[in-house]
């Protein structure tokens, strides 16, 4: 552990030298914190005063000596013509400046002057805000329900409400969504009701998944939202397949898939992006870079400048976005979607954010990160508050609306939970259905055997366990 701290301290000092980010470090570094915190803040959020530097970063350094008279000096290799140089130069492991982050709203909810963004109408903006707040309330209540032992598991999206809702708002209902698991907001936007969420979490008879998956593994073909599958990043090659399918059928729709920073280490990330690029499939890959994969900080996850730089490695257009800025996320996803469908190409979006909650109810993140770091992101960098300020400044939202929304949603959720709890659970037949389209003989036999066992010894099975 000591060695790690020493290394990161050197990292911090080299950052100071190379990136000129001393301003940020001085700003934040005003109280004793573990080195972890200092390092991590360095990676998040550009500061307004450095914005002018960002435009310079876009120019790629030239590695080939460009001399007019030697224009014809190119080599032919499989893959096309490539210029050559006699200067032995290695491409540096990271660009001299990090790729800047696209943002539209500042921390006070005011639009940064000269921003380009896609305007959002009052109706859409209010709906976006309402849904972000609803998602907050939903996360809070379901989390508490798990703590009370009423559901077995839950996973919150606290801190990532802007990514959830704004991306969903930017898509069309025909776009097929392949989530990781921290994107229930997309389903919420598309019309999944609080009751439907509760039913899945309780695994009751009304659950569309028929009680077969853990809580938060929502899925709805009606809403074009693929059922969540726990293993990380398996949805990425599947998204390439969905894109391929949409391309074959020439539909005006794209595949949209989400992953976390940890998911980009999986082989399936490489596979999915490479395939989508080669296939020229309309897929939008949205990476929620929230800094943590359970207890693994991104500095231990990869050594590249985040995920956005990986797009170019696959020939994929990419952008880094402030994931806590709802307007920026909306504009970026909307543009990416248009590009994907019109130009039939994949697009990569890295949305920078912070995972405020624990990884899940099975995790206590204060074990591996500072409580005040969490507090900082929860209070000062809260995406919901930020968007609320903008909506309120426009006169579209009031304190009264706020308290009404929160109390109504809370009430509705509590009722949904109570109702979901009371619903019967799935009968035994659902254990054996849907394994295949038609039940084969061996499963029929197994079902008959189990039924007989339960009827013979009902005292060994939970009451209300019906067959």
């Amino acid at each position: 552990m000591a060695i790690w701290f020493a290394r990161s301290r050197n990292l911090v000092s080299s950052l100071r030298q190379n990136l000129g980010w001393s301003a940020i470090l001085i700003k934040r570094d005003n109280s004793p914190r573990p080195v972890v915190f200092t390092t991590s803040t360095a990676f998040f959020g550009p500061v307004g005063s450095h914005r002018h530097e960002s435009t310079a970063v876009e120019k790629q350094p030239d590695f080939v000596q460009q001399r007019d008279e030697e224009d014809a000096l190119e080599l032919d290799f499989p893959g096309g013509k490539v210029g050559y140089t006699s200067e032995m130069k290695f491409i540096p492991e990271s660009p001299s400046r990090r790729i800047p982050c696209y943002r539209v709203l500042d921390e006070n909810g005011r639009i940064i002057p000269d921003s380009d963004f896609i305007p959002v109408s009052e109706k859409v903006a209010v709906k976006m805000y309402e849904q972000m707040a609803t998602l907050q309330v939903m996360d809070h209540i379901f989390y508490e329900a798990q703590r009370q032992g009423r559901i077995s598991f839950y996973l919150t999206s606290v801190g990532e409400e802007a990514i959830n809702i704004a991306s969903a708002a930017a898509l069309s209902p025909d776009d097929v969504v392949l989530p990781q698991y921290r994107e229930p907001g997309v389903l919420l936007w598309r019309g999944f009701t609080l009751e439907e969420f509760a039913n899945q979490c309780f695994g009751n008879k009304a659950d569309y998944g028929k009680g077969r998956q853990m809580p938060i593994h929502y899925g709805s073909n009606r809403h074009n939202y693929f059922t969540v599958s726990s293993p990380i990043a398996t949805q990425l090659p599947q998204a390439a397949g969905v894109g391929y399918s949409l391309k074959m059928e020439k539909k005006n729709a794209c595949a949209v898939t989400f992953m976390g920073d940890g998911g980009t280490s999986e082989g399936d990330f490489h596979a999915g992006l490479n395939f989508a690029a080669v296939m020229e499939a309309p897929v939008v890959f949205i990476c929620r870079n929230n800094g943590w994969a359970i207890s693994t900080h991104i500095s231990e996850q990869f050594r590249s400048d985040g995920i956005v730089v990986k797009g170019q490695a696959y020939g994929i257009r990419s952008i880094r976005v402030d994931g806590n800025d709802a307007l920026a996320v909306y504009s970026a996803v909307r543009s990416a979607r248009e590009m994907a469908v019109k130009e039939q190409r994949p697009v990569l979006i890295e949305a920078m954010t912070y995972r405020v909650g624990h990884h899940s109810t099975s995790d206590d993140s204060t074990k591996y990160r500072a409580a005040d770091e969490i507090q900082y992101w929860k209070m000062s960098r809260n995406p919901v508050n930020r968007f609320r300020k903008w909506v309120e400044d426009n006169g579209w939202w009031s304190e009264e609306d706020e308290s009404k929304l929160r109390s109504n949603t809370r009430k509705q959720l509590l009722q949904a939970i109570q109702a979901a709890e009371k619903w019967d659970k799935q009968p035994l037949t659902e254990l054996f259905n849907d394994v295949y389209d038609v039940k084969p003989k061996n499963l029929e036999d197994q079902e008959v055997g189990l039924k007989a066992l339960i009827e013979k010894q009902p005292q060994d099975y939970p009451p209300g366990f019906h067959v």
Partner: protein
Amino acid sequence: MSAILQGAGATTALSPFNSIDSNKLVPPSRSSLSVRSKRSIVVAGSDGIKSFGSGLITRRSEPLIANAVATKGENAATSTLSKPGHELLLFEALQEGLEEEMDRDPHVCVMGEDVGHYGGSYKVTKGLADKFGDLRVLDTPICENAFTGMGIGAAMTGLRPVIEGMNMGFLLLAFNQISNNCGMLHYTSGGQFTIPVVIRGPGGVGRQLGAEHSQRLESYFQSIPGIQMVACSTPYNAKGLMKAAIRSENPVILFEHVLLYNLKESIPDEEYICNLEEAEMVRPGEHITILTYSRMRYHVMQAAKTLVNKGYDPEVIDIRSLKPFDLHTIGNSVKKTHRVLIVEECMRTGGIGASLTAAINENFHDYLDAPVMCLSSQDVPTPYAGTLEEWTVVQPAQIVTAVEQLCQ
């Protein structure tokens, strides 16, 4: 992935210990058709075999049965048939089945390595890219997990992909997608999403291809709930199973064998499908039931010749359906002969034979006069050296000895 040696030899492959050329190998499968036909007609009503999917399957197989040439133990050298048909090799039969299904349903597509203009490493997809375009017959980069996952995603969105693994062994890299997603998503989504994929490719022990290219993946996959597994062994059942697998709503893994691609047989001109869950009666008999599949069928039939000369009457069944087992056909046979010998290419531990032995013991114990015997490959990686490799595969001589032992 190392490059694969193409098509192991021009003529068909059997053990070099037996000098059998491909022509004589056309199996006397016609007899099985007449047996199957009776069962097919009855299927709808009987509680024996339940067909998955539509009754379309049984209806389809009816018309041609009437034309079948049905003789038991016929030497195929005389199979200049009394009925019209066309002769082709097994890989061509697979290609024909695939092409017919692609003509019939625009949602059927193919993806895999080198399946497009190259025509596939074993030429199963030859000519398809020219006919259907290179989006529908898709050449993918080298990542089995990726294109299997891609096929699953495409299937969930309405296509019917046929995913080719260049060699079954490579599909070990796709195990996660096959087990966690392919087999599971229909169930965990509550039936909202179906995954009608076909995953196919050549496996089994070839001709000195080395351990990594001689895998028997049916052992590893047989436990995965939600998938079906079938193994083809003749051009007739290759085409029939390919078509049935594509039409099935369930994910189906179709096991082909590297050494069987050049088998020649005459197959009907009319359209037909083979039932995915049915076993094939290769040679009816009275003394002993020999259960086998894929390439071992031919070793068994070779041994059967010797056994007949010695006065035995073995019943040979090609089980074809590896998951689920056709316990109806198998059971009827066990009830008749009371002795079972399983001949497989899988390893002894955890192979198809191991599961089949357990299933027979559980279900038909009372009918057995002797313990079920299973001949399998040893639990060793397949060596490269020809002589060593030969001895990892069950040989006809061993089969003869085993039958003599069981029938004492």
